[in-house]
């Protein structure tokens, strides 16, 4: 079990290391988006008068980015695995469903960790937010978010026959995450019905942990409920996702 899981995670990371363009993009995309965020927010001086601090949003934007990239990548890679026949080959060659799903989580967690590190460095230099003190809760939350993203990705991959068919599913996840998770608009300011809907948006729980720990200087333990909920959502999604793999292991 562990060795097969590890073989899959290692294989995924090895593929990414080979793919120079992907490597460059996975570092450049967070960089460009964070820069964009900084200059857009800085060019709106009225925000400061409203008491909005640009730096407050940076960690939430970072979480959003990691969530989004891991979701899209894992969906596309799994669709490609199915289309190219490598998924069927994995099954015939002795890999089990849970090994495949957890192996993907392992592989993407490494990538998400690299992206998180990039983002944390950027936050220090662009926004002058030093997160070293909160590195453990931030890293754990990002990791849990990566698990959720892969679970969603595996699940969605069942509905696409090729990489192109993944694209309609991107806004399906992005728009609710952007509007209902508390990244851009505080949840308490939403209409009551949408506040209820926000409970099914996984990013909501990550935002709740990060906003509490980083912005409001709360202890990680006081934010344990949303963190465990996020982990629970991740575990449920993974279990569900591994059942939705149509192939017989």
């Amino acid at each position, binding site marked *: 079990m562990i*060795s*097969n899981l590890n*073989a*899959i995670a290692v*294989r995924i990371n*090895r*593929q990414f290391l*080979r*793919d120079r363009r992907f490597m460059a993009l996975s570092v450049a995309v967070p960089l460009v988006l964070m820069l964009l965020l900084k200059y857009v927010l800085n060019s709106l001086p009225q925000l400061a008068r409203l008491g909005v601090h640009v730096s407050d949003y940076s960690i939430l934007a970072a979480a959003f980015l990691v969530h989004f990239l891991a979701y899209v990548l894992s969906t596309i890679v799994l669709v490609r695995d199915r289309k*190219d*026949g*490598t998924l*069927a*080959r*994995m*099954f*015939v*060659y*002795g*890999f089990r469903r849970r090994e495949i799903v957890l192996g993907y989580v392992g592989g993407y967690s490494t990538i998400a960790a690299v992206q998180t590190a990039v983002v944390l460095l950027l936050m220090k230099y662009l926004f002058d937010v030093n997160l070293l003190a909160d590195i453990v809760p931030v890293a754990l939350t990002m990791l849990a978010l990566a698990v959720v993203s892969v679970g969603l990705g595996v699940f969605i991959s069942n509905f696409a026959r090729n990489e192109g068919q993944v694209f309609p599913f991107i806004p399906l996840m992005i728009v609710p995450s952007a509007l209902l998770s508390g990244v851009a608009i505080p949840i308490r300011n939403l209409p009551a019905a949408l506040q209820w809907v926000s409970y099914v948006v996984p990013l909501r729980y990550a935002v709740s942990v990060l906003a509490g720990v980083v912005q409001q200087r709360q202890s990680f333990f006081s934010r344990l409920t949303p963190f465990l909920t996020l982990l629970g959502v991740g575990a449920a999604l993974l279990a569900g996702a591994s059942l939705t793999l149509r*192939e*017989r292991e």
Partner: protein
Amino acid sequence: MFTPSDDLSPGESAASAIVIDGLYKAYGSVSALSGATLAVDAGEIFGLVGPNGAGKTTLIKAICGVLKPDRGAVRVLGLDSGRDRHAVRRRLGYMPQEPALYEDLSPRENLAFFGSGYGAAGLEQRIRDSLEFVGLWERRDDPLHTFSGGMRQRASLACSLLRDPELLILDEPTAGVDPTLKAAFWEHFQGLKQRGVTIFLTTNMMDEAVRCDRVTVIQGGRILVTETPDAIRARGRTRVRLELAGGVIREAEIGRYEEELPRLLTDYGLSGEVRRISIHRPSLEDVILSMIENRNPDG
């Protein structure tokens, strides 16, 4: 290599590598297999021939236990391909229709990855043996995206040989492969047969079907016939064209021309009037195509 099992189903001999009995599978309202039945002997090269969409890949997936049939039984190497699928898969090699390997990785890395699924004992040596067998050892560390289509197929074949299989399942192994490489593939297959490996392959090319020991023709999820290529060819109707004196031409279709031709000719007393007899023997491809068109092999 082949170990017979104690619990054989009726009609299954100890020398059967694959026994498929009344297999049904539908995808929604589209039925892919409708009661397919066939038996593959241990040690033979067995060809599954049919047009695209005939149910070949579905049948292969059922043999590998990746797909659950709606009805019917599949026994592979004496085991149930559904219930005992892991025991079956450990003993078979599977080459899917697509190369089904990772483009960014080298052949060695691909084989090391897929080979680790059922444990990595002795894997290094088996990777070397497999890659040497298909002539890719020299290119073992080059990424697959630098390979031609034929080399990818060879890498895929090497991957299917990793576990030193007793039974090799090849889904259109030579699709898109040039004639030289195709000949090399068939040398590989004959070499494996010499070692006692049973080979089950699908193809829609008749030049390949004739190289098999036995052939099954599948159409619309139904098995039309299972025989040696020669026997299938003998089922074809022979067209006879007689050119009589005075430019009169008489044409006839007969079954086994060796017996029926003399009978036909007695009408004419086998006299000197018969100037020349030309016989058109149908190729295997002609026969199979007409079977698929008519679904009536005996005419």
